[in-house]
């Protein structure tokens, strides 16, 4: 993996030089990435003459359609059978992610040759403090203070996080630990790709409504630096996991449930880690237990889908940054945080 990463990073050098496409070519390529690119992913890069990348994006689309077809088809044919629903849903989510990411990557890569580079080394500690506004029809609107930090000890990361509502009407505590099998830690990595195994515990209390939920989660998450397919400055994220949940009620027996965890994202880096740097991403989050929860809409289909969102973070100096994010499902979550970190040599 490290070797292949090195090769791809080496490939990315000349590609940045190839990025001298004329503005008119880029406009035409970006338009082609939208139409017919929405149906044939890679159309933008094909227009730019980047046939290898175009083919990879098309393959991504086709694999995505295949996974979606397998997932949704299995759900339809089996009537969402209890014996096979979870892998079928995971396949549908993976396929949808691949389909969307390959399209967004075609549009983005047609419009620019990358606006930034990944962080290849991470600080031992990063901390955040911010505010989130949560609007959920089922609960009172609220503002929550959100704070947490990432502590990295070699390949291990420990990340406690807390969401605190005024008057303690709502409180969500999460402790995640992760082991990074590959990718940037406090030691330099060849590119922005990584793969983690995560274990987490969550306690979410709603004292005013006389209930609380707790969960234990196990998952695998990763990031693929798309420079590996000649799309420098962009990345795709994916994760899959499983959660066991417990619902505690005042004066009534508890319930145990489970939850499929899955997430995908497409994002870009902006700037160089040695100066002002940031990353922007859009994502799909399948979990139904967060503040945003699952997606609802007025028509036939509500409940199964998760939430959608966007996230932007920027390190403005070597130790100070900002994060803004918004997410919509059954509720809306939006807000920002201030970030601080122990400076590192990029």
């Amino acid at each position, binding site marked *: 993996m490290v070797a292949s990463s090195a090769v791809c990073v080496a490939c990315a050098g000349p590609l940045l030089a190839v990025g001298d496409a004329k503005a008119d070519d880029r406009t035409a390529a970006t338009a082609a990435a939208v139409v017919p690119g929405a149906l044939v992913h890679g159309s933008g890069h094909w227009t730019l003459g980047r046939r290898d990348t175009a083919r990879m994006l098309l393959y991504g689309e086709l694999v995505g359609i295949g996974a979606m077809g397998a997932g949704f088809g299995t759900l339809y044919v089996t009537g969402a059978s209890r014996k096979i629903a979870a892998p079928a849903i995971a396949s549908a989510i993976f396929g949808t992610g691949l389909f969307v990411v390959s399209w967004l990557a075609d549009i983005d890569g047609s419009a620019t040759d990358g606006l930034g580079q990944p962080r290849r080394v991470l600080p031992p500690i990063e901390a955040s403090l911010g505010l989130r506004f949560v609007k959920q029809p089922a609960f009172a609107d609220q503002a929550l203070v959100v704070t947490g930090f990432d502590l990295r000890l070699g390949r291990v990361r420990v990340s406690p996080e807390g969401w605190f509502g005024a008057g303690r009407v709502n409180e969500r505590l999460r402790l995640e630990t992760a082991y990074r099998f590959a990718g940037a830690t406090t030691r330099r990595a060849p590119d922005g790709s990584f793969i983690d195994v995560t274990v987490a515990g969550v306690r979410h209390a709603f004292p005013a409504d006389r*209930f609380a939920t707790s969960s234990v989660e196990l998952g695998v998450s990763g990031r693929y630096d798309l420079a590996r397919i000649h799309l420098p400055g962009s990345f795709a994220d994916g994760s899959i996991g499983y959660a066991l949940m417990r619902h505690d009620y005042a004066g009534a027996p508890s319930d145990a449930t489970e939850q499929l965890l899955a997430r995908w994202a497409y994002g870009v880096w902006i700037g160089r880690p040695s100066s002002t740097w940031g990353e922007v991403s859009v994502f799909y989050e399948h979990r139904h237990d967060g503040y945003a929860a699952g997606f609802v809409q007025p028509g036939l289909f509500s409940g*199964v889908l998760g939430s959608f969102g966007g996230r932007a973070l920027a390190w403005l100096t070597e130790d100070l940054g900002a994060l803004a994010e918004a997410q919509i499902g059954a509720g809306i979550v939006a807000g920002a945080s201030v970030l601080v970190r122990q400076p590192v040599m990029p």
Partner: protein
Amino acid sequence: MRLVGFALGLALASSCMHVAEDRTRDDERIGHVHTAAIDVDVDDGAACVRSLAPVRLRAQTPSPVIRIRAPVERIRLTIDNVLPDATLSTGTLVDDLGRTKTWEVPLQSGEVAVSVHAPDETSRAPYRFALLADVQEDIDRVGDIYARMNEDPAIRFVLFSGDLTRRGTEDELIEFERRERELRVPLYATLGNHELGADEVYFQRMYGRANFNFVFRDVAFTLLDSASATIDPRAFGWLETWLERGRGRTHVVAMHIPPFDPLGTRNGAFASRAEASKVVAALAAGGVDLTLYGHIHSFYAYENAGIPAYISGGGGAVPERLDGIGRNYLTVDVDPAARKILGVSVVRID
């Protein structure tokens, strides 16, 4: 520019979060029609007004109370979906088709208040009702299920917890109701997500409220609209009132989408686990004795917050395979005097 677009998107999305709000507002209007010629008001919206000339209603509970004001001496009143042995407090029965009855009702000074009654409504002896859900595209075959129900004389009425049709169009609902006439007893239905696929929610126009509550033989029944995988906050407020009112009685709550799917990784359930917990916590605190759901096309028996919970989505929609269940409905035996659910049985059709 991108930020402005994102902000506009968020604002639009915010307005789309209250996905069931229009239906709860419509619930409040159901059973109340006022024109220059006639006023009809049904207490608690327990029946929907289908026409005014002649006056025709569809009952959604066993004992609706109807108030009519019109500058005439008599009025002909037809009520669909009544108990076969129902009577009217005032008036002469002029046509009896079992579940549909017509009475000639005299008005005093241009007004009258009438109520539908069942001969056994004050009895506290045990009785049985049935639960059915998720017929969807299988309307042509639902007659099999009704025939089986008709063979059981103990069934007093049927609760239907959503997905009568495939998309909720007017034509589909007309066809569903045409088939429903094969049923001997009334069917009290709330809607499911498959009633939300048309240009408007015809269910409420044709069947009545999506959220309602009634008491029959000292057992409280609450049907809720969870068709959008959520309960509208206004409906949750009604639920709290109905729970309070139902204290001391056996209380049965039915809705289409269950708060929790027994198979959590599938999440054929509320969109928000937190909201699901809130609703279940409220049901437990309110002393609910039984929860009944649809949406999942199989049969499941489990508990939520210690309350027995059953999913019966076996009305004929694409079935959950590999479960060995097939089409099914439930029968529930209740004992009002003992304040007990005596038993819940699954009846297999195929």
